[in-house]
Every structure is written in C-alpha cells, then in structure tokens.
C-alpha cells in the first residue's frame, strides 16, 4: 500500500518534470530516496490533509523545473520540503496552514515591523499590508497569471529567512511610498565638521583655503572605492551596524569583518591623501597634517558624503 502511494507520488513527480531536468535526475542515483525523504518531511511538517502526497510531488517537480540551479544534487540539499509544504498549503488557502504560518512566523514579522513603525503607519497596519501581499492575489482572483507573493518561495532555503527578506523589503517599500524621510543633504560647507585647530594659524588657513579641494579629493576617493567596500563602510559608519551584525549578515568571522572595514577605511584615507596632494601641489607632510586634522572627524565626513 505504502509502495503504491510512493509510486503514485513518484509518477506524478516524473510526469510534471521537464525533459532537461529528467536528464539531470537520471544522473543522480538516489533521487528517488531523496524524493521520498522530502515527501516524508513534508508530511511531518504539517497536516497530512493539507495537500495530497502526489499533488505535492507535482509541486516539487514544478519548483525544480523553474529553478535556475544547475546542480540538481545541490537543489535537493537546499530543499526545505517541510517549509515548502507549508508555503504551498498557504497558497491554496488551507486554514490550518495559514494558522501555522502565523504561529511560527508571527513574532518574527512583528519584530521586524516594529522597526518600521512611524506616525501614521502602525505596526499592525504594516503587518496587515504584508499579510495581504503574501497571501492574496494582486488584482483579485480573476487576474490571470498573478499569484500571491508566498507562491514565489521556492523551498530553497528556510522559509523563516525568506519571510524575513520579504517582510523587510515590503516594509521598506511601504515606508518609501508613505513618507520617505529626505536624504541627508551633503553639507556644502565641510568647515563646519572639521575641528578648529588650536594654536596653529597656518593649519587653520590651510584648512579654510583648501576645504574645497579636500571635499573634492574625498569624494573622488569614495568614488574610487570598491563598491562592496563602500557598502560595508556605509553600513558600518552611517547605518551604525556593528561588526557582529555585519559579520552575521555576510557570514564573515567578526575578525574578518573588522579587518575588511579597517582596510576600506585605510584605502579611503590613502586615496584622499594622494588626490589632495595632487590637487594642492603641497608637500606630502602638509597633506598629512591636514588629514590628521580631519581624521578625527573622518567618520562624520563619511556620514555626510556617503549618505
């Protein structure tokens, strides 16, 4: 009996699969065992009655077909069948699945939503917006081809992470259309952020005279930075993300994250120095004193220039 069910599911899976993928699977010796394990995992993850076993097998085949992952073995490795089962049941509007989703990810969503709360946009409103986006078909049920957002979850990677990504992106979107705060304008007068050198009138003069050059050199150096480094610096200095947070996001050890940030900062300083020397035509040691002057406020400058 069990074998029959399995055979039925396997047949549905195979039938729903495109030719290219059939070839790929043919080279994977244990795909049947993997399929069986995935179906079992799905059955454990939710109510058995949510989606029939062979129907879910067809869903799996569809995801595999659509996916751009060339390596089928890797596709199986990253497949979270239980999570996908829940998501598919949500697409079908199964009550139990929707409840489960709320139960498992509700807190996470609320936690993220609270970060975007602002006057006129309550946390609950944000959550409601997200729910609508996740579970309802844009343009109504009749619109052809349109599917709720949750249908785009491919089962590759944990649903929890996918939910975090969609929630964050949706909320950022909401805020932008709602009332995006104006971007911090770049200060036209950098003098304000540079410290007043005490007891060194010559330096003070240099600073006043060359502030335009400094600004230009700095902007040039920022532009010349590697874009990944620029993002990292911006996130660390302007957005005030900690080394730990960055390390966790990019899967870097905290020491590596710190090293990369320090490297980017050094690169920025060196590039500024070179550009400034070229523009000013002053001896390098003079450039050094100007830079020292601004180094203490470099973070403030970066904030304004990168924002």
């Amino acid at each position, binding site marked *: 009996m069990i074998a029959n069910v399995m055979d039925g599911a396997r047949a549905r899976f195979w039938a729903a699969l495109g030719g290219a993928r059939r070839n790929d699977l043919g080279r994977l010796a244990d795909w049947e065992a993997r399929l069986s394990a995935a179906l079992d995992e799905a059955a454990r993850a939710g109510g058995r009655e949510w989606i029939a076993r062979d129907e879910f097998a067809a869903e799996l085949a569809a995801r595999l077909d659509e996916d751009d992952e060339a390596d089928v073995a890797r596709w199986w490795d990253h497949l979270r069948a239980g999570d996908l089962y829940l998501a598919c049941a949500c697409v079908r509007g199964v009550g139990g699945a929707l409840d489960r989703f709320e139960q498992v990810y509700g807190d996470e969503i609320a936690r993220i939503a609270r970060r975007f709360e602002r006057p006129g946009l309550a946390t609950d409103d944000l959550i409601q917006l997200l729910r609508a986006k996740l579970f309802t078909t844009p343009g109504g049920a009749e619109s052809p081809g349109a599917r709720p957002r949750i249908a785009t979850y491919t089962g590759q990677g944990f649903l929890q992470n996918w939910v975090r990504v969609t929630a964050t992106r949706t909320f950022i979107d909401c805020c932008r259309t709602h009332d995006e705060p104006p971007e911090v304008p770049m200060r036209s007068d950098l003098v304000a952020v540079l410290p007043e050198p005490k007891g060194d009138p010559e330096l003070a003069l240099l600073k006043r005279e060359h502030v335009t050059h400094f600004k230009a050199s700095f902007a040039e150096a920022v532009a010349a930075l590697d874009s990944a480094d620029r993002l990292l610096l911006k996130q660390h200095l302007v957005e005030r993300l900690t080394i730990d947070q960055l390390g966790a996001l990019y*899967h870097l050890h905290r020491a590596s994250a710190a090293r990369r940030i320090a490297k980017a900062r050094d690169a920025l300083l060196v590039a500024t120095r070179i550009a400034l020397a070229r523009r000013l035509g002053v001896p390098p040691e003079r450039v050094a004193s100007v830079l020292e002057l601004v180094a203490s406020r470099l973070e403030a400058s970066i904030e304004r220039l990168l924002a």
Partner: protein
Amino acid sequence: MTSSASKSPRPEVTACPSDKIFTRLLEGTLGDAELTALQAHGDGCPACGRTLSELARTMPPGQGDWLGERFQLLEPLGIGGMGVVYTAFDTKLQRKVAVKRLRELAAAASADKRRARFLREAQLLASLSHPNVLTVHDVGGVDPELYVVMELVDGWPMSRWISEATPRPDWRRILDLYLQVGRGLSAAHQLGVVHRDVKPENILVARTGRVLIGDFGLAGLAEAAGATSDPSGPATELTQTGAVLGTPAYMAPEQHDGKPADALSDQFSFCVSLYESLHGRRPFPGRTAAEIAAAVRAGHPPTGGDGIPREIDRVIARGLTVQPARRYPSMDALLAALARAGERRPLKPVLAAGALGVVLATTATVAIVGAHRRTPLPGIVSSVSESAHASAGAPPTSAHSIVATAPDPEATGGVSATGRPHDRRDAAARKAAAHARALAWAQHHPEIDARMLLDFADGSHADRDGAACLTTLNRVPLDAWPAALSDRALRRRATCEMLRGNCEKGRRMLEALDGATGARGTQLANCPVASLPTIEDRIAAVSAQADEARYAGNKAARRKELKQALGRQTTAPPIQACFRSWNASRACGRRLAALARSYQVLAESFLAARDCAEGAALDVMRSQISYQSAGPEGGDPALRCRSERVFAAYRSCADAGEAAERRCLARVQAARRDGAPVLPDVR
C-alpha cells in the same frame, strides 16, 4: 583615480536581486561572485542597501556566526545570564552540538585569572567522561568572548521535567536521578572542579532517561564579569552590590558572603535542589537575595511532609548546615547517606541499642535507630550511618567519619544527623576534643587518605584555628600530597599560616598559585588585622573578616577585636586601595582624596551596622559606599541606580543600627557638599 570628483558617486544600478538571492545570503549559500554582485547592487540601490542593513539588524542574535573555524551557530536554544546557548554544527565531525557563548567577560579586572581558572577547569572536565556529566567537547575563544562546546542533549531541565510530568514523579524516581547526578558532581569534585551553581535548571533529564549535570564553573566566570547566573527577578539585582554571585535561592551561606565556592558549597546547593524537587518548594523561602540569605543563615529547613520520608529530609538537612564543616565531608558521603535513607522506610519498632559495640555490630539497625530516635542515646556519637559504615570493615570516607568512629568514653552528647549540637554549652571544647581524638585514631589507620585530612584542615580553618589546621596538614609531607589535592593543600596551608600571623610566609606560598592580587585578597581575609601594615589594608581586612565573623559563634568578641585592630587613625589613607576592596574602584573619580576621611567613618558605621541587621544593613552599606564613590552628580549611572534600588528595598528596615548608619551617611554627605572633608563625630 580615473573618475573625476563627482558629488554623488553611484555605479550603474542593476536590476534588484530576487528574494531568493537575499534568502540565500542569510543561509550562507551564496557564492563569492554572487555576494560581490549583491553588495555592489546594494551600494547603488538605496532600497536594497537598506534591506541589507535591516536584515543585519534583525538577525536573530548570533545566527550564522562562526566560532573559530570549526563551529557554525544554527539557532539560539535559550538565553541565560551567562550567555546564549545555541545549537551549532561541528563541521569537523559533522554533528550537532550545543554551544554556550560567554560574552564580554573580560570587563572585570580580575577576569583574567578567572578565565584562566575556567579554561583549566573546562579542560579538566573535557577529560572527564562520566555518564552523568554533560560532556564538554571543547572550549575556546578570543577576547572578549569565550565559548564552550557541549554535548547536545534532547531533554528537559530537571525543574521542567518534574513540573510537566503527569502525574508528578514519585520521590523514589527523583531521588534516584539526584543520586546519579550526585555521582557526576562527585566525579568532578575528584578532579578538583567545583560547579558553583548547582540548581534544578542546570540538571538535564534526557529523553532517554539519562540525567546529567551541566554548566560547570560558569558561575565563577560570571563573577569576573559582575554578572549573575540568573538574570530575572529582584533577587539577582541585589547580588550585584556585593561580591555575592550565583543563584541566590540555591547558594550556600558562604557564597552569600562572597566567599569562593567549594565542593561543600556544591553539596549545599545540591541539597537545596533536591529538597525543592522532592517537596515542590524551596527550603529557604524569600523573594529577595537578602531574605533568602537570612533564611539560609537561620538554618533548619522544615523536614517531613509532602510524603517524603523524614530520614531523607534529615540527610538533606545536614547538607544544608550553615557551617560547611558540619555538612557531609564529601558528595560521596552525602550520597551514601541518601541512598541508605531512601532504601528503607522501616516502620518496624526499633530496639534501643545500649552500648556502642552493639550499635557498631548491627549496621542496618543502627541507621534505623538514627532515623527514628528523637533523643540521642548516651554514649553514642551519632553520625550513625557513617560509623556503621566504618565498622563494617570499609575505611571511613572522611574526616567526619573519623570523628564519628573514634571511641569517646566521656561523650555526653553528640551531633545529630542534622548537625545540630544537642548541647551548646561547651561546643567548642567538645569539638576540639573530638578532633584530637579523631587525629589520634587516624594515627593508627594508614587507610586515612589525604583528602580526609584536608577536609579536616578545612574544618579547623573554618574555626579560625590555624595551629590545629597546620598540625593536621603536617601529617602529610609537603611533596607527598596527591597531585589532585596539592593546590588545595598548599592554599589551605597558606591561609592557616596567615591565621597564625605568619602573613608574609602565607603570602609567598599563595603568590605562586594565585598571583599577587589573589594572594592579597586571601591575606585580608585571614591575617590578624593588627598585623597588616597599612590602614587601608586594615579597613579592608575588617570588612572581610567581619563578614566571616557573622557565621562564627563569638560574633561580639570578634567584632571588638576587629575594631581595636582598626584603631583610630586620623591621617588620610591612600584610599584607592580601600575602594578596590569594595569592588568600587571603577566608580572612583577625582574625589578620592576628599573621601578619605569619610570613608573611615563609613567603615566604622559598617561595623556598627553589623550588630543590627546582618545582611540587610550590610548590603545597604555596600551600595552606599559604591554610591558615594561615584560622586553625587554622576558616576556610573548603573551603579547609582542599583544602589538606590537596594536602598529602597531596605527602607523598611527601621533598625536602630541602620538609623545610626543613615545619620552618619547624611553627615558625610553634608560634609562633602560643603566641600570640606570634615571628619564628623560618629558617637
């Protein structure tokens, strides 16, 4: 440098990456090229840049982090006072493990030593393979973070296991589990590792039925960070004011006093846990650390009831004795007693044993006698079960059994199973005589091992009898101590030398073990106050020793002695040293010089406060001193807030001593406001 200086340098913006790419970023399955592309896009596209930043901000704490090159954190299992526990994947051995991350422990000044001790103990534990001890696979980490990699156990903490089981587990089952856990604890003690925070939450009952104790030594580490092991509730707030750490409800009195925990403290905590698990309530009630501490000091937890055999409660009660020396000398002794108490619930009438010889001959009966008799029989020293044990031909397990088994022709009373003396009139004299007898007895019994002698020396030390302690220790030549005990023996020898006034000698011994700072703390607690060279040392020593005196019998006499030793110095001492001893150095600012005199006033009122309210007033004093040292207009806001809270907690104490101390404080404060360091008249 090809690009010209432009106002807003932005690369070409590519199409926004899919949800899947971001999801894979979080999973860590993104290839290098894909990651770089995503970052480059995030640099140019404000919405995606912000998405990345927000994702980083809402990252569940620690998820995805690497510990070293080998362990990647999976998901948080729980958060404790000492750090977050995660499941993690061991990439080398391809298995799931539990990882406890201990953060920012380097904050405290004394952290290094404790870290070193913790690492040493963890390494020792890692070498211990015991079915009832949670296996430590690895420890490691770099400043300021430590991590401990442990076996991942599928189960529940003992507390939850009991509360969620229906019906409630039978006492026999609970006792059986605790006996197993006790064996694990004992195995660790034999390695010289002290747990420091035994409580039902740290005992795991696996689904398989196995029971394990975990989290060894973490409390000691937390001490270094000024953290507490239990972040919730008002009780732990209070623990931060003094050097008191641990989980108040389970702490031994000596821990409440800020003294380092040892195997006997573990025994106490073990007994509190067992009592709670059996009875469903704690032996020492209280909502705050001070209330609990007061209950602990009052001693005598209620026995019987809840269907628990009285014999078991009696054994537990001895483990809960205030004086460490009166508890069972080791976990093994406690476990043996517990096992015997649990084995039989005799209802048979008992024959009264008339003579010692009879008692010793009938092992089984003796325990029954011990359990059922209300008044001790003359001529019998009744740590009964242990003497029976010894008589059966097996060597006694401890110094206490030596006391118990040594024949005592003149004995007129004894120590009951609860450790309560029946006759207090000349308890000290009787005790000394018993010790002497036991030693004499031990002389003819080569099987007495070093551990017993050391237990014995510990007892003498607790009585502040340096000479007796050294006599005991001298029975084993310096170089003949077993390796596992040699540190402990050396330390005990040093403290006992200090007790006898050989301060310098003791200090030199200790420095080799603990370094200069550690040696100094021990010195303050042990050396005669008058022998200390500087006033600040004397003040610190008075405070340290007065703490201990609270548990010693002759409190008043000791106080007088201490006060005399303090003398009446009027010169301003280099006060930093004093403050260090109060754990307040970090709050000391420029005002120290101005505080010098007022500090001495505080120290004196500190002594006065001891008379009235013990722990409560003491904590108030401590927090006030911290508060004072922070200065009226600022200092460390956390410290300030804490001391105010402590103060508020004890506001109800309308004790005369406290009132006097408050008056004194008010005067000090007034003097400081005037800017003049006037020494007010306390009397």
